[in-house]
């Protein structure tokens, strides 16, 4: 008799797994105490975490909030805990947080030729930067979350022109004329395209607005201001500072570097030799020099090259440099995404008769950008943190301000508290970006 033949007569019922493999105990056993080596590592790690927290938590929470100088802080510490060691002096934040957030931006800007008393008007303090920040959130929300009403995109479109007006003030006609330049560029494309082909039209769409901005935009804005005057008090660039400045530079660089980076990445793949060499040259040059060099060029060297007497706002110069720097990195990140797309996607688009720009916009870029999300967001985070470098050329970003605050006799010698505060604020922004990118990756995942 062979016993290789077997027929099951009864199906087995389902049983619960053993208690050691599920629940808290099961989890700890599988993840923390799986063998003696892991157990030792777990215990050592726990001891280390305990050691760090035992130092940090009392420092953060057994601290002084109400003090106007470091000396006062130390006195309070000695009285309360008998020692000045191991306790934070948050008094400096309490005392200077407005400065850390806004720099020397006036809470109530006034027109220089108007004597408006103490300047306290009907509006709350720092109304303009706060409004600009709230509008920023409104403007980016429909871009970040596609389920929001599409009408909000109007705010997003207007924001690039509204924000500088709110921040720097002056006549509304300036930003309006800048915006008009884009309309003129579009018109130029529409008019030239049927006459002279798409390449000429693109060149026209780039140069006609530039000519407009350099020559006519200013005088036209002046005339319109003369007819209908809509203006708010101006604020000079040197008064900008604090987190407001970091966010301003970060947002502009992030917002502009993505589209510029896309065009650079496409240009790098172009069949047109000149376009290709220009893009490669630009990208490799910018990636080959440190950002700080570019910032020095912006702050010092440009003055040498520009005709004497030219007013070229320092923040604007920094914005351009940081944006170009970010764009070069962005271009390479996006090129990686483009390279990862199978050739079949181009062929699919081509075989349906889509033209180059349609194929790029509808098929290639959505996928290439999706693949590049982690890299794009890393670049964003990097750019945002790199904004602290502007302190080296004398702009008062939070780090620059921390030096300024220490220069004051009252807070001379305070380091940790300022840096901790700045670090926490940066962390909030960078961590949100990182979480958002993970959300986006999950949302855009359409395969299995």
């Amino acid at each position: 008799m062979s016993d290789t033949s077997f027929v099951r007569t009864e199906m087995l019922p389902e049983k619960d797994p053993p208690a050691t493999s599920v629940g808290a105990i099961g989890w700890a056993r599988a993840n923390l105490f799986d063998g003696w080596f892991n157990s030792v590592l777990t215990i050592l790690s726990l001891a280390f975490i305990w050691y760090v927290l035992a130092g940090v938590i009392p420092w953060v929470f057994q601290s002084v909030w109400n003090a106007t100088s470091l000396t006062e802080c130390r006195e309070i510490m000695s009285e309360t805990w008998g020692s000045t060691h191991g306790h934070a002096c948050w008094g400096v934040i309490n005392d200077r947080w407005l400065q850390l957030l806004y720099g020397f931006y006036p809470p109530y800007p006034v027109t220089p030729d108007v004597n408006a008393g103490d300047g306290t008007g009907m509006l709350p303090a720092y109304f303009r930067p706060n409004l600009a920040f709230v509008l920023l959130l409104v403007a980016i929300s429909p871009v970040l979350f596609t389920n929001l009403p599409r009408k909000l995109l109007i705010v997003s479109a207007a924001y690039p022109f509204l924000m500088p007006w709110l921040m720097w003030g002056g006549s509304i006609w300036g930003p309006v004329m800048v915006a008009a330049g884009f309309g003129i560029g579009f018109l130029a494309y529409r008019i030239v395209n049927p006459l002279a082909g798409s390449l000429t039209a693109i060149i026209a769409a780039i140069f006609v607005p530039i000519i407009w901005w350099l020559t006519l935009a200013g005088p036209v804005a002046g005339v319109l201001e003369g007819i209908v005057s809509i203006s708010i008090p101006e604020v000079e660039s040197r008064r900008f500072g604090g987190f407001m400045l970091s966010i301003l530079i970060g947002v502009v660089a992030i917002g502009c570097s993505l589209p510029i980076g896309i065009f650079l990445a496409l240009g790098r793949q172009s069949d047109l030799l000149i376009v290709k060499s220009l893009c490669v040259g630009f990208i490799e040059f910018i990636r080959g020099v440190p950002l700080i060099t570019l910032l020095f060029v912006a702050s010092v060297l440009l003055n040498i090259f520009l005709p004497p007497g030219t007013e070229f706002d320092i923040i604007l110069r920094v914005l351009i440099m940081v944006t170009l720097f970010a764009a070069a990195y962005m271009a390479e990140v996006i090129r990686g995404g483009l390279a990862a797309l199978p050739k079949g996607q181009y062929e699919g688009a081509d075989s349906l008769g889509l033209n180059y720009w349609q194929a790029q916009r509808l098929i290639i870029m959505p996928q290439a950008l999706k693949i590049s999300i982690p890299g794009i967001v890393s670049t964003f985070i990097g750019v945002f943190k790199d904004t602290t470098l502007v302190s080296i050329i004398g702009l008062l970003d939070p780090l620059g301000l921390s030096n300024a605050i220490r220069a004051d006799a009252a807070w001379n010698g305070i380091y940790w508290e300022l840096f901790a505060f700045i670090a926490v604020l940066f962390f909030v922004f960078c961590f949100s970006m990182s979480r958002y990118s993970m959300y986006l990756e999950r949302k855009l995942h359409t395969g299995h």
Partner: protein
Amino acid sequence: MSELMSDREIDRSKMKVSDEVAIEITNMNKWYGTFHVLRDINLTVNQGERIVIAGPSGSGKSTLIRCINRLEEHQEGSIVVDGTELTSDLKNIDKIRSEVGMCFQHFNLFPHLTILENCTLAPIWVRKTPRKEAEETAMHFLEKVKIPDQALKYPGQLSGGQQQRVAIARSLCMRPRIMLFDEPTSALDPEMIKEVLDTMIELAEEGMTMLCVTHEMGFARQVANRVIFMDQGQIVEQNEPEEFFNNPKSDRTKLFLSQILGH
């Protein structure tokens, strides 16, 4: 190679070859660098013809049909599609591409768009069809390829056979006059090949002009009115399917058929 025969009778009432020329290729040569991949190709396809192109791997079959809609550029000779000659003029190329549908071995669906969006994209952007109308057309063709219920899914959620049928529907939405197929079934599991072939047979029954690169000899026998055998970049033999399979003339064809039919 599978010898799948459709189980149903083929309705030949509309399968008529007209005198109108759909594709005319004259003395066409193509090189990849210095490699002479297509040599002196002459081929005339009439409206309503169903042509199967066979041949060993690397013989230039894909390259040939990809030249017809300019996915590849030829260097010598001329290709005239529907009266328009393929030159480097971008307008002509886009016009021809929108009239010639193409299905690929690996489907080339757009994974970030739903099935419906895949089908409406080109009509909306290339033909400027209103969205609603484009969606109706898309649903019509998705019903035809028997997957209307998958319209809102993404390509990644469908089986290979379903994806290839979507790819066919996507091409049909542009209302092409000619369809090109490049080994549409060779990336599919055997049980899915039949569903795709059935769709292609239906298309043939409606009188579509078709050029298929395929190893499905059953399909060739049933549907094609001409089989073209290519080897080393040249057209070696062409004939009606019966003659081609039962009485091949050239030795290369005989060798190829004996390999592919497993005799």
